């Protein structure tokens, strides 16, 4: 007998069928009892059956007890008998399952897995019957065959997992409260991962490894070299390739038996619902507030659980939204988006690989718990992970808010909106460009390069040393070059944090982090910034930072302080004569336009 058209995985072959055929007659009405049993138990049961068969060999084989008694109705049409036989088998199956359900705690299959088994059994029966009908065989043998097939399937494995799956996932099948049922649910589920970055890579990797049937990946971006320290699903050879495809390839190398969908688009109000509706669970592995609100609203509108993770620097946050009646959504907890210039992203603030790795792995675990319906999830709780101090704090969140704009009883958001407008920042502008200064308060990098050259400042320490060599006409140069000379020629202040200043800076720059600048008294400011106090001194003061945002804030801050408190400074010059400017676009622009050897980060 061929198993080709039996849906679901098969664990038997022709030889097994015959063997089962021998045993079958002894099993009467308990034929389709479903039992989870150890190999030892199985052997015992087999031996018992064989012994009973030997003992009963002389007795009349009571075939009528295992097949519907159709002999008396030989006059009726074949079709009717077939229908009755089918009904009888289904009824027997139901009875057997009811028994199994009642016996749950004694090691029989637990009720929660019965749905899968029910479906599986009826599929097996249906397909066997339909094959039987095509052949010209008498009804008894049809029914016998059906029972044999059902028996074979249920005896070897009371579940839908194939032998290959059992082998591959054995170590998680062994985990109590996950087990076969958990695996069946995982293998037939679909999960959408939004963002193939630092969170998405570990999350997708663990879910693929665990055998989630279908994984969708959303990302519009391509792999870049500075992703690789944390986005461990991508490889060097894939720099420049689409992140979705790079991650898909990596997941398929790990587990070729799962299905992976790539959605290489910008997730927005137009595309989100169409993509989301095909998945059971949504995972937020995105990297900006605008996308986070979009993902939340789409999940609420389609009523799907949302596993949310985020990370920055040494910290991570994790929770599950919209999972259960009282579980809040992202908007219930954070109804107001943070103002864009106060959002620090990973490109600005940095992040350590194992931090996103931890959060992404925890997201995968939440997904597994939701799908397998085992374990307490983080629904209604927020995990705060502090990798630097090693602290994990869990905060009990609020219940669903009656005032929530999207999940409350009177929602104002009933379809997706423009989230870039809502958040005041977009998906693409990972670092928003501030424009707080007028053009006269700014200087472009090219202009600054000319200016500093005209004042004899060289663009690197090497050139500086070279220059001094020339000046000294070959005289030996002291290795501890005093850079104060160049510093005195031009006033450039670098407002970045010290860890960024340590990566690279212009030789004439003095590090005065913006945070420090903010807390200085006016006297400290004047002293630190070496503001010109004499008439013949240079009136220029420049600020520079990574991309040209903080430098503008510094110019504004200094300007305001001098205007408000300037009269308290005893100075020969009017502070209004100072020209305080920022370098447009900061070191990024410097590297792009003036000096491509300058390290970018």
């Amino acid at each position, binding site marked *: 007998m061929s198993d080709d058209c039996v849906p679901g995985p098969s664990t038997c072959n022709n030889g097994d069928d015959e063997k089962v055929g021998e045993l079958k007659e002894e099993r009467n009405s308990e034929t389709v009892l479903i039992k989870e049993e150890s190999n030892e138990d199985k052997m015992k049961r087999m031996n018992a059956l064989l012994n009973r068969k030997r003992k009963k060999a002389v007795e009349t084989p009571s075939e009528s007890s295992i097949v519907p008694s159709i002999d008396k109705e030989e006059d009726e049409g074949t079709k009717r008998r077939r229908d009755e036989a089918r009904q009888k088998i289904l009824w027997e199956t139901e009875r057997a399952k009811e028994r199994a359900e009642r016996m749950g705690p004694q090691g029989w299959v637990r009720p929660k897995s019965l749905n899968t088994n029910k479906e599986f059994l009826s599929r097996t029966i249906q397909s066997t019957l339909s094959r039987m009908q095509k052949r010209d065989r008498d009804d008894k043998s049809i029914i016998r065959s059906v029972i044999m097939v059902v028996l074979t399937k249920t005896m070897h494995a009371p579940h839908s997992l194939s032998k290959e799956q059992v082998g591959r996932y054995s170590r998680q099948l062994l985990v109590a409260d996950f087990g076969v049922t958990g695996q069946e649910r995982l293998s037939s589920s679909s999960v959408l991962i939004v963002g193939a970055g630092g*969170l*998405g890579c570990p999350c997708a990797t663990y879910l693929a490894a665990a055998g989630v049937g279908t994984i969708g990946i959303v990302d519009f971006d391509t792999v870049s070299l500075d992703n690789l320290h944390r986005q461990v699903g991508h490889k060097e050879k894939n720099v420049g390739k689409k992140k979705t495809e790079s991650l898909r390839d990596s997941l398929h190398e790990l587990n070729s038996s799962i299905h992976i969908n790539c959605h290489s688009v910008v997730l927005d109000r137009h595309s989100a619902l169409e993509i989301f509706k095909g998945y059971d669970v949504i995972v937020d592995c995105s990297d*900006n507030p605008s996308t986070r609100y979009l993902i939340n609203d789409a999940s609420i509108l389609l009523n799907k659980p949302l596993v949310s993770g985020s*990370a920055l620097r040494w910290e*991570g946050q994790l929770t599950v939204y919209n999972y259960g009646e009282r579980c809040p959504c992202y908007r219930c907890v954070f109804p*107001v988006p*943070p103002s864009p210039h106060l959002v620090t992203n990973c490109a600005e603030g940095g992040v350590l690989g194992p931090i996103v790795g931890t*959060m992404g792995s925890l997201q995968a675990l939440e997904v597994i718990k939701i799908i397998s319906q085992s374990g307490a999830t983080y629904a209604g709780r927020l995990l705060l992970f502090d990798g630097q101090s090693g602290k994990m704090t869990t*905060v*009990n969140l609020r219940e669903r808010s009656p005032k929530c704009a999207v999940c409350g009883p009177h929602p104002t958001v009933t379809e997706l909106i423009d989230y870039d407008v809502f958040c005041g920042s977009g998906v693409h502008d990972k670092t928003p460009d501030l424009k707080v200064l007028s053009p006269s308060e700014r200087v472009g990098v090219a202009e600054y390069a000319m200016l500093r050259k005209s004042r004899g400042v060289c663009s690197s320490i090497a050139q500086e040393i070279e220059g001094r060599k020339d000046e000294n006409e070959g005289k030996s140069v002291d290795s501890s070059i005093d850079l104060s000379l160049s510093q005195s020629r031009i006033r450039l202040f670098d407002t970045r944090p010290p860890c960024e200043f340590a990566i690279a800076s212009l030789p004439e720059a003095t590090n005065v982090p913006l945070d420090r600048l903010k807390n200085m008294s006016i006297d400290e400011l004047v002293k630190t910034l070496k503001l010109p106090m004499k008439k013949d001194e240079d009136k220029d003061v420049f600020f520079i930072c990574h991309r040209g945002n903080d430098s503008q804030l510094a110019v504004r801050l200094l300007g305001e302080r001098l205007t408000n408190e300037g009269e308290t400074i005893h100075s020969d010059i009017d502070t209004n004569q100072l020209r305080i400017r920022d370098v447009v676009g900061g070191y990024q622009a410097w590297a792009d336009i003036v000096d491509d050897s300058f390290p970018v980060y």
Partner: protein
Amino acid sequence: MATPVEIRVRFFGKARELMACEETRATIPNTMSYQELKNLIFHELYIDLESIESACILAVDHTYLSDHSTVSLRPYSEVAIIPPLSGG
């Protein structure tokens, strides 16, 4: 009648960045409304955090504070100031 208690204040995410510290202590009344606590934190004690007030959640002893709740603090209660992280 409110009496002063010393509490621990923990900063997360952007709040930690703005305060340039993880944790501090403060002595504040042991009972007040949510709004009073909010004013105290964002407008009196930690003015640097004013800019993120609307986006933060507050938790006392690991429990979210909702709009109209009354805050009760014990000695060394932990007040957490939690803005959302959005990186990933």
